[in-house]
């Protein structure tokens, strides 16, 4: 178990800077998930912690000791790769024992550790096999086993579940969480899958274009996204965005369509008249009588998921951009109960649940102050 401290971490390839200064303090035993779209720099970030990429500027410290110039093998870390990176010419047993042999442990202890890890991961019967004789899920577990046996200070996971099918992914997600909890090893986990991010993390680092947009617990990120990017990235279906502006007395926002939404709990006194992007989660909208509606949805498509029914469409008279809605860009989704009887082409009168507004500056995309 180890605490990791990252200060002003930067990475450049030639003149192109891809990571623009990340600060984060990770406590011992914490499970941190780094999430973001392709090319946001999350893997590069992880590889710098692993020591596989040189640090351009800033420091990475493990347990208070800077490790910028420490070789990967001396950092006491273990990494699980997306492709598993199992040694194809070695048996499962030898794959797991490889690092221990190099560390010079006595054979009896190596065997004991491998057996213990194999039992934990239900791999005991596969120990004499080669990786190519295993299924994807089993290989994944061997990769985990190789990390566990070394009993490192830090686990690093680089999209370890992306190559598995959906069902196996859910199962392995739970196993990883359970393992991390029982071992208590500090872990950094990179993924582009927001469900993995939400379910595994003690804290999330949401990355976008080389910047950590928000670092916080999953629920805090979900309930108080720091920017339009975070709000859009976390949550499925994504948050709805509408254009509007703060009213003259600063206690409400007015949609382009003319509806006025109360902004209780927001301190907007200094922002009167400011153009804002209003975010509303699909589950914070409910169907009401036409007279009580905050906005009207023109339904374009319906997805019945069983437990829920999702209605997709656009808000009549209101887009995300401040102009007339564009069917493709200004999709508004509503999560309705599974038994809702609605039809395509229908107009739905919707009301926003009290206090469930998210307000962002229309120009910068940053969240406005909400006390």
């Amino acid at each position: 178990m180890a605490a990791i401290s990252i200060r002003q971490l930067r990475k450049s390839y030639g003149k192109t800077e891809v990571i623009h200064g990340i600060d984060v303090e990770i406590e011992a035993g914490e499970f941190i998930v780094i999430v973001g779209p392709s090319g946001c720099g999350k893997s590069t970030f992880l590889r710098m912690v692993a020591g596989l990429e040189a640090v351009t500027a800033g420091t990475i410290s493990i347990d208070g000791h800077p490790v910028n110039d420490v070789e990967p093998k001396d950092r006491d870390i273990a990494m699980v790769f997306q492709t598993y990176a199992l040694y194809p010419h070695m048996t499962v047993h030898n794959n797991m024992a490889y690092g221990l042999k190099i560390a010079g442990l006595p054979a009896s202890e190596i065997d004991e550790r491998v057996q213990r890890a194999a039992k934990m991961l239900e791999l005991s019967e596969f120990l004499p096999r080669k990786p190519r004789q295993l299924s994807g899920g089993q290989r994944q577990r061997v990769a985990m086993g190789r990390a566990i046996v070394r009993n490192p200070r830090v686990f690093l996971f680089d999209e370890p579940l992306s190559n598995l099918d959906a069902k196996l992914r859910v199962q392995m997600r739970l196993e990883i969480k359970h393992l991390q909890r029982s071992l208590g090893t500090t872990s950094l986990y990179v993924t582009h899958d927001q469900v993995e991010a939400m379910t595994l993390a003690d804290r999330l680092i949401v990355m976008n274009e080389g910047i950590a947009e928000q670092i916080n617990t999953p629920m805090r990120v979900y309930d108080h996204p720091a920017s339009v990017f975070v709000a859009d990235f976390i949550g499925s279906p994504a948050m709805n965005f509408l254009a509007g502006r703060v009213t003259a007395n600063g206690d409400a926002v007015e949609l382009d369509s003319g509806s006025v939404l109360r902004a209780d709990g927001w301190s907007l006194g200094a922002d009167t008249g400011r153009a804002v992007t209003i975010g509303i989660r699909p589950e914070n909208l409910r169907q009401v009588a036409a007279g009580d509606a905050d906005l009207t949805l023109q339904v374009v498509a319906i997805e019945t998921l069983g437990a829920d029914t999702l209605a997709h469409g656009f808000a009549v008279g209101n887009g995300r951009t401040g102009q007339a809605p564009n069917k493709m860009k200004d999709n508004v989704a509503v999560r309705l109960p599974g038994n809702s009887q609605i039809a395509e082409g229908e107009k739905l009168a919707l009301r926003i649940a009290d206090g469930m507004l998210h307000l962002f500056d229309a120009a910068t995309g940053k969240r406005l102050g909400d006390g």
Partner: protein
Amino acid sequence: MEKRVTFGGGVLPYLLVLPQMIITAVFFLWPASQAVYQSVQLPDPFGLSTTFVWLDNFKFLLSDRYYLESFQTTAVFSVAVTVLSMGLALLFAVMADGVIRGASTHKTLLIWPYAVAPAIAGVVWLFLFNPSIGVVAFYLKYAGYHWNHVLNANEAMLLVVVAAAWKQISYNFLFFLAGLQAIPRSLIEAAAIDGAGGWHRFRTITFPLLSPTTFFLLVVNIVYAFFDTFGIIHTVTAGGPERATMILVYKVYADGFVGQDLGSSAAQSVILMVIVAALTVVQFRFIERRVHY
């Protein structure tokens, strides 16, 4: 489902394989059968008639001291060429694999010797080491060493080995480099994180994963040293001094076309044919089965 073009019988399929069959027949089957036929014949001194002598040519060869010596020479020569060219090629490939700046220039330059014909390669090395006019021989003399491969058997062997290996390094280099680049980076990274240093990584991960390439090259290089080095031997030493570099394939030529002993020469060809067939069988057997992980 397998996609496969099918022909509805008739003559077309036969026409399509005909060119290959003709080439095989004219350039392999016919000469090979001639060699087999000649190997059991003994021509008279004027080449006007031949006598069927059963396996006398072979019996004579196997009791011929020079022929058995030639076997030894060939063994030494091929092992030396194979080890030298593969060893250096692997070293170069590992280094080229690590080069980032100017990588393509390095690779191109390393591939060049392959484009040189064996006889030309021989002449190049001959010029360098010629005892009277060679540049290297000249400087060796300065350093106090009198190089003369025309008289010294060991020096002659060394020179043809170096010349033959030099030409084959490019070929081996290409295959080793491709083999190295086919090893996923993440494996090497995983080994680095597992605590393995550079040499240990090479020994336990990289080299075992290269083993299919290595085995393939081993067979190819032995075949090369056995057969394709004729031009180098011919230009550099012509088998001398005193048969010191007389490898089997050169002896076929020397006995048959210089010594005019066609029966013995044909018998030697047949023996070489058997050797190459055996090598090919070994290669296919092992490459398909053992040398895979």
